[in-house]
């Protein structure tokens, strides 16, 4: 039952080949994605190549949709080469042809040029057995929005057929260490379009997306100590959020994006604080003699969960976002660190240490049950996809940092690596508009 798809991404390899000098503005990563496992009942779907106006674009929109759906592990993408017809709208679909392939669903679409360098993308999804249209959409876009539109279409199909929320039209952030240079990069959730947000010869850690996806907070050592910056992804402007004496680290946005929980040490041990997103209004949240760090907000903004060694070993605790007594949350495993909330607030992903092994664990907050989602041995930095179905984390492959993702039911696993690269500290951002 172990399927292994290997998706190479020719577009990016192509670009990388012609941009050998990766300098300041944009470094193109060639993330290679491997998928293993999959749902027992994968939905068989035929994705008919979209009709595409000559010269409109070299991008094959159907391939992008297929790659997204395949990566979820919930779909089986059918080979359509054996069917002669190429419908571009649902009314043209001859269902009998696709029933032979045992397709449960079929997607058709068309890309046409509009005046003023715009594109019109139409698509339809139909149920092959019931022979009816499930949904149809039309997008009027700029040519550079074609990939994003493909991800949005994949999301529509995914939502319609699985009942889960959208996931593909989103981005991830991570740190790429290459030749002793650290770059905070942002890429599409499929690993494409990697762009450097900031780079330094000193370490960068802990990137955190603002809830609206317009900014990233991160910790940079460029001044020989950890300082928290907030940088706009639209204007590039950056703000020094916290530069107090000692360490400034572990930024975590409040659900409404107005505040961040941060960790300051001043001249002693790490403690939790909250600070407004403009750097004003610093408030201390924990007052202990222990290490308190790695804050994450509950989606209802009432609680901050964090790592503390106040009980001797690092475990996860929670405290009211306004301060007060902390309560312990984790009781299994030698150590539990780095908690991250699922979007629905019902579970907590974290790093669990058993013996010498650090792996990703998921704790159900309603019944306390814990499930191990990765094998370790040096896994860390878990974050949820916008729909909570997938957890992205950092792992090591051959001594190098790589990214991995696992479905929250543990069935589907992906690994994203960059040849020669050392990537770490991933964070999955919100959906793109």
């Amino acid at each position, binding site marked *: 039952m172990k399927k292994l798809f290997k998706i190479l991404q020719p577009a990016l390899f192509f670009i990388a080949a012609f941009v050998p000098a990766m300098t300041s503005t944009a470094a193109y990563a060639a993330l290679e994605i491997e998928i293993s496992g999959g749902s027992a009942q994968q939905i068989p779907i035929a994705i008919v190549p979209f009709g595409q106006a000559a010269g409109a674009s070299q991008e094959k929109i159907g391939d992008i949709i297929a790659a997204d759906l395949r990566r979820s592990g919930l779909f089986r993408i059918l080979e359509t080469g054996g069917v002669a017809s190429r419908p571009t709208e649902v009314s043209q679909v001859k269902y009998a042809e696709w029933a032979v392939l045992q397709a449960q669903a079929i997607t058709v679409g068309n890309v046409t040029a509009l005046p003023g360098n715009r594109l019109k993308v139409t698509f339809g999804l139909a149920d092959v057995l019931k022979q009816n249209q499930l949904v149809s959409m039309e997008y009027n876009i700029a040519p550079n929005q074609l990939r994003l539109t493909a991800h949005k279409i994949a999301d529509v199909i995914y939502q319609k057929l699985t009942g889960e929320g959208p996931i593909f039209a989103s981005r991830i952030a991570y740190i790429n260490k290459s030749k002793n240079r650290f770059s905070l990069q942002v890429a599409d959730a499929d690993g494409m379009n990697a762009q450097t947000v900031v780079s330094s010869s000193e370490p960068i850690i802990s990137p955190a997306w603002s809830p609206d996806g317009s900014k990233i907070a991160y910790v940079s*050592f460029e001044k020989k100590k950890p300082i928290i910056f907030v940088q706009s992804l639209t204007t590039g*402007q950056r703000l020094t959020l916290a530069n107090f004496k000692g360490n400034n680290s572990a930024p975590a946005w409040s659900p409404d994006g107005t505040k961040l929980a941060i960790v300051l040490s001043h*001249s002693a041990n790490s403690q939790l604080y909250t600070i407004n997103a403009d750097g004003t209004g610093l408030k201390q949240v924990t007052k202990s003699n222990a290490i308190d760090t790695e804050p994450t907000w509950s989606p209802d903004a009432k609680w901050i969960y964090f790592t503390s060694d106040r009980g001797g070993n690092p475990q996860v605790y929670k405290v009211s976002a306004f301060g007060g007594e902390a309560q312990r949350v984790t009781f299994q495993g030698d150590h539990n660190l780095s908690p991250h909330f699922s979007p629905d607030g019902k579970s907590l992903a974290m790093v669990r240490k058993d013996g010498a092994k650090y792996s990703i664990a998921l704790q159900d907050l309603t019944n306390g049950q814990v499930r191990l989602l990765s094998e370790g041995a040096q896994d860390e930095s878990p974050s949820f996809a916008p729909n909570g179905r997938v957890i992205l984390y950092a792992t090591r492959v051959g001594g190098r940092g790589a990214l991995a993702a696992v479905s929250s039911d543990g069935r589907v696993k992906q690994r994203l690596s960059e040849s020669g690269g050392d990537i770490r500290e991933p964070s999955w951002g919100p959906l793109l508009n």
Partner: protein
Amino acid sequence: MNKSILNKKLLGSLLLAMALSACKSTPMVDKPASVEDKSPKTEATAPAASATDTGADTSGVKDASLSGNPLTDPNNILSKRSIYFDFDKDTVREEFRPLVEAHAKYLAEHGNAKVNLQGNADERGTREYNLSLGQRRSVAVKKSLNLLSVQDKQIEAVSYGEEKATSNCKDEACHQLNRRVDIVYEGE
């Protein structure tokens, strides 16, 4: 005597800062910038550039040999900058007492000198937690210096966590080297 050493050091830093800034066209780092190639070296030496009274164009540059600076003289204990710790411990071991005392004395005699105590941790565990672990060690060294009458304003205890750790350690001897505090003087 001490003053002249300090001046030579400042002068060296200033020239270095000028040399670095001369070959850089990018603006200073704190300006809003989206995708900027940053050189922290420029920053580290930038404070020295404000000491304009030192003058930049003197003949004494060549004489400012490194051996004249006790902080970098390999025969001087002040050139020893790393304090190592036991696993999961933040106690400054007895063997590092002379090193800590020497730096305390230097700082007491050089009221303008400032040190950054950079805590480190081995790579096991999460980066942020290790940042806090390294901090605990730098705070332990800070307290030792405080006990030897060094003022708070001369010390900043920070941490690099596991960021400067040797990665892919196979044995304890390797991890041991990552559990340390580095003493870095301002301008270095």
